[in-house]
């Protein structure tokens, strides 16, 4: 019996203290709380759902339109619509208790204080297994400079969140920078347990009939297969710069897409926009990974992580306790 089990490749991975049955996450903002997909997929086949980002105060979000289709991808400018942390703790978080997969809370903010406050509150909930820090917001105290675009600000905000929770802290990086590896090193130095790479790429589209931007917010974030080469490179570069595990994302729809990120150095992958084509993508990718490893006689995902990245530095821990 145990012999048979032992030949099933191990997909279990660890992100800091977070142990995941599958290396496949549902990306923040794309799967809601996961519940919206319970009618369509079995959440027990997902590693974890990353919840929609929550902020200290409630936010009505941006004016519409908030979505535009573009070649091979889409632009979004939701504007972090959410009910604020207090309402969220009272009404939403309790529902996450019985989730058959990991639950990662996502925190956004506009000052160091915001991040610390929200991280502490959310991190204190039993229903939340880990915190992802969405630092792609402008810092209102610092002339609107985006936290994730400045190594110093990145260090500060990660350090503030680190102090606020003992739970696994994943820091999500923006690709809209000259040198993403420098930002990654600061996040690691400030105490991040893992990095999510990448958030959306800034972009815009123009309505050529109405002569105005197509998004209510003028600019938005580009996601989907169009940005995959940008995201794979970001993972490749970050994996050479830090030793903490990476959650790769940006345009993943298929097994082959996920493999590109894993071979570049990602320990896990996250599916966002791919969900809007087919919500079964993360389940299929996990199944595909298992077959891929089995066909090659490989025992676990660790055997392929970073294998296309000669300078790979990332030193993930793996739990070897499952068949």
């Amino acid at each position, binding site marked *: 019996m145990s012999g048979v089990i032992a030949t099933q490749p191990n997909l279990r991975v660890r992100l800091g203290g977070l142990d995941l049955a599958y290396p496949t996450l549902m990306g923040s903002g794309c799967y809601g709380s996961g519940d919206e997909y319970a009618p369509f997929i079995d959440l027990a086949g997902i590693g974890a759902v990353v919840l929609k980002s929550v902020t200290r105060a409630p936010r009505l979000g941006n004016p519409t339109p*908030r979505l*535009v289709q573009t070649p*091979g991808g889409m632009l*979004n400018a939701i504007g972090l619509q959410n*009910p604020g942390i207090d*309402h969220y703790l009272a009404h939403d978080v309790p529902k996450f208790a019985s989730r058959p997969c990991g639950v990662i809370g996502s925190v956004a903010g506009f000052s160091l204080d915001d991040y610390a406050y929200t991280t502490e509150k959310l991190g204190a909930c039993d229903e939340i297994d880990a915190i992802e820090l969405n630092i792609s917001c402008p810092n209102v105290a610092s002339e609107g400079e985006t936290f994730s675009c400045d190594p110093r600000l990145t260090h500060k905000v990660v350090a503030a969140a680190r102090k606020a929770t003992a739970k696994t802290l994943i820091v999500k990086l923006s690709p809209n920078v000259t040198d993403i590896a420098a930002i990654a090193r600061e996040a690691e130095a400030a105490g991040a347990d893992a990095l999510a790479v990448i958030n959306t790429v800034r972009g815009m589209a123009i309505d050529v009939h109405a002569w105005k931007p197509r998004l209510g917010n003028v600019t938005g974030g580009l996601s989907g297969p169009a940005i995959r080469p940008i995201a794979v490179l970001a993972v490749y570069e970050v994996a050479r710069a830090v030793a903490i595990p990476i959650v790769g994302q940006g345009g993943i729809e298929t097994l082959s897409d996920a493999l590109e990120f894993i071979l570049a150095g990602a320990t896990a992958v996250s599916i966002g926009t791919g969900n809007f084509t087919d*919500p079964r993508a993360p389940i299929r990718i996990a199944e595909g990974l298992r077959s891929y490893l089995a066909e090659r006689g490989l025992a676990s995902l660790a055997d392929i992580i970073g294998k296309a990245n000669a300078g790979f530095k990332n030193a993930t821990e793996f739990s070897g306790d499952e068949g």
Partner: protein
Amino acid sequence: MPTLESRPAIYTTRIIDRREPAPGIVILGLHAPALAADTRPGHFVMAIPPAGVQAAVALGIYEARAERVSLMLVDAGPRTRALAALAPGDSLELLAPLGNGFFLDDLPDHVGIVAGGVGLASVLLAAEDIVRRGKRATLYYGARTARALVDRDLFAAAGCAVECATDDGTFGHHGYVTDLLRIADAPTLLLACGPSPMLRSVSRVAAERGLRAQLSLEETFACGVGACWGCVVPLDRASAQAPKFPEAGADESRTYVHARICKEGPVFWAHELRW
């Protein structure tokens, strides 16, 4: 809201018929018995496009009877085009049925249905339902030109009166479909689906004349199931459909919240919208 809870799922259907009632318009008939049974008027689907094409696309459920459901595709871009290229025998996967549907429990004697362009796809089932409930239904149907007015016979066959308007005057009233509502004995309840400018106009006419109107809204969708908050519309806080949401501090948040068209809607009461 529909009287019976429907149970959304991923349906794998097979295309059993295909017709082109006008250039650029394709109607696909699907074999989908369980979905046909679970569909209420005003429901929509998220159709997964053929491999290689990104992003599922929102489509109204046009017909639903016995084993068959149909979808209407109006050429707008890559996804409607890829779906319109499917042929009988091909399979098509759907997330369905989705949305709240029209509120049909408490109807006056005469219900007006206002449809513009592809909006027609979302109102045939409502027309059938109204007639089935023993009420009078009139379709007010507008399009650019006569050729784009399709399937009037299907409505007539369902026992629904049909009045038309075209932008170019090639059939029916020469002008806006909403002009047809400016009559003495207009129906006191309107159900409307079509492009935004038409819906805003229906909204204005209804307010002016003291009619009630349910609008089935269109917006770019990503998820179609309430997960991404991409498809919102400002809605009165007091609406029964408004999501629970604390005041955001900004003044306007005292009066409205952003409701998801795909989840809280797509059907809203015109007088509750704050757009």
